């Protein structure tokens, strides 16, 4: 029998695609499998319990403080991110479209996207934190707000690059028609550009939010690592990612399982947010 190269090629390509399926489904199964002990012990209460007590014999773990911490930091990040990312995309795609300045700003935004999380963490710790202290928000400089601020800087390039792409897709004819009627640039932006690019811009912030949920190192270094529900945005706390990074090293048994359960919840949360973003983008 002659060796059929054609068929082998196709099989090889198909086999490679199976690797993706295997990794993804294996990931879900492993996370579920690993979190069984925690859910068996605490039931669904694990999600709404606020206690995190590793004392032996009296162990009790609940994920709520970290879920709250994760959502709070990410929401703060997005609130700060929206005006900045929006302006920067306007700068690149509208105000200085096609000029050298725009490409320099674009390159710098790309560079921001490339900075490793741990470097952001260091910079936040040694530069941003003293500023927070100087401004008198809190005495240590750690906390939800500081973490949210560094997250904002980290996700801005992400939101900016998607928004910019969407804004560049808005047809020039529409904008030129508005200009020819005597509209100013601001009027074109608010009456033509934004209505046309609205859902895309919205999506860029959803995806940036999804990115913020899972950031680990910078947040771990700035949030203050307190396993309680923060009382305010200048209080210390912990996120789902940061509790895993912090406590994984010394964890075993029920604690390990609880951390994995938190990983599973984080996986589901980011999956839902990203899925929503991708869904809207596909509809465009």
């Amino acid at each position, binding site marked *: 029998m002659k060796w059929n190269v*054609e068929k082998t*090629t*196709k099989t090889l*390509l198909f*086999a*490679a*695609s199976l*690797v*993706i*399926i295997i*990794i*993804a489904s294996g*990931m879900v199964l*492993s*996370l579920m499998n*690993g979190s069984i002990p925690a859910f068996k012990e605490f039931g669904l209460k694990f999600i709404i319990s606020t206690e995190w007590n590793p004392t032996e014999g009296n162990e009790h773990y609940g994920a709520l403080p970290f879920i709250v911490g994760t959502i709070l930091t990410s929401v703060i990040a997005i609130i700060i991110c929206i005006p*900045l990312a929006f*302006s*920067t995309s*306007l*700068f690149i795609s509208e105000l200085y479209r096609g000029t050298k300045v725009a490409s320099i*700003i674009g390159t*710098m*935004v*790309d*560079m*921001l996207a*490339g*900075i*490793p*999380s741990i*470097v952001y*963490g*260091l*910079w936040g*710790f040694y*530069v941003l934190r003293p500023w927070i202290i100087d401004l008198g928000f809190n005495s240590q400089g750690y906390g939800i707000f500081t973490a949210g601020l560094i997250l904002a800087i980290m996700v*801005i390039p992400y939101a900016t690059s998607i928004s910019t792409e969407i804004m560049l897709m808005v047809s020039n004819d529409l904008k030129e028609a508005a200009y020819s009627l005597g509209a100013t*640039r*601001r*009027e074109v*932006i608010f009456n033509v550009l934004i209505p046309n690019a609205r859902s895309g811009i919205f999506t860029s912030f959803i995806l940036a939010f999804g990115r913020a*949920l*899972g*950031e*680990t*190192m910078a947040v771990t*270094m700035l949030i203050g690592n307190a396993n309680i529900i923060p009382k305010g945005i200048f209080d210390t706390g912990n996120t789902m*990612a940061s509790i*895993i*990074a912090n406590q*994984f090293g010394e964890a075993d048994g029920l604690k390990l399982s609880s951390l994995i359960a938190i*990983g599973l919840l*984080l*996986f589901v949360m*980011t*999956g839902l947010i*990203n*899925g929503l973003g*991708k869904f809207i983008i596909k509809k465009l």
Partner: protein
Amino acid sequence: MAKPKLKYNSILQREVKSRFIKDKIFSGIVITLSLITISPIVLIILKLIAKGYKQINLSFFTETAPNTFQAMEAINSGNVIPGGILNGITGSLFMVFLASIMAIPIGLLVGIFLYENGTKRYANIVKDITDILQGVPSIVLGLISYFWVVKFITNGFSAMAGSFALFIMMLPLIIRSTEETLKMVPDTIKEAGFALGVPYHKIILRVLIPTGLSGLITGILLSISRIIGETAPLMLTALGSMSVNFDISKPTSAIPLLIWQFYNDPNMVDLIWSSSLLLMFFVLALNLISKQIISKRNK
């Protein structure tokens, strides 16, 4: 007759003027906010250079990390901390290399598969799953690699486990960039090949890959720049090591892991800046090279 017209004109002028002023103010705000957005990159790089250059010398690249006593002695006598981050540099390169030799071939194959079967249902599912994988937080990838490799394959923290986490992170990036690149290859070139009776695998090897080569390389470089700075998954998998290690079944250090270690050790704090500077240099160099390749291709 002339009077009312003049009045009308002046109202019109005022109206137009206020619109122009509004426009100016708006532009001003946009420009200011844009400058605020990019200011961190300048501040961060300046800070890294200002604080880190002192420690950059030959031994920084040729010696392994000092222990905390050596660092303390050096600080007390006012010297530069001895030693370097050789174990981190070699560890990072080693694990990125291992991740790459797994992720590049599989990523290219899946990318080609998606490009060829783009409209089919199964391919769309694979595409969606790839997107989901891309959004998974890196710390969760660390957990997975801990389960699969640390617990079952190497029975302990290892370079293999670290690079496996990096591999899962790299894979979706390469798949998507491969697919996007191939989509830009004109169909006519491919069809010309088929018309000449060229078999399928030769079309891939001789037409698709060479035509899209610059795009493929760019995708690979960018994905490396994304994983080289990863810390969280390595903390759960590669752990770190005080010596240079090229054994895939042993704990291994990496530049980001060393930065984390230095950060937690008051005696070593001076080393965080130089290590970060070097890490940033790697990341930015990879980014700039890929930008260069893109702009060359566009010409």
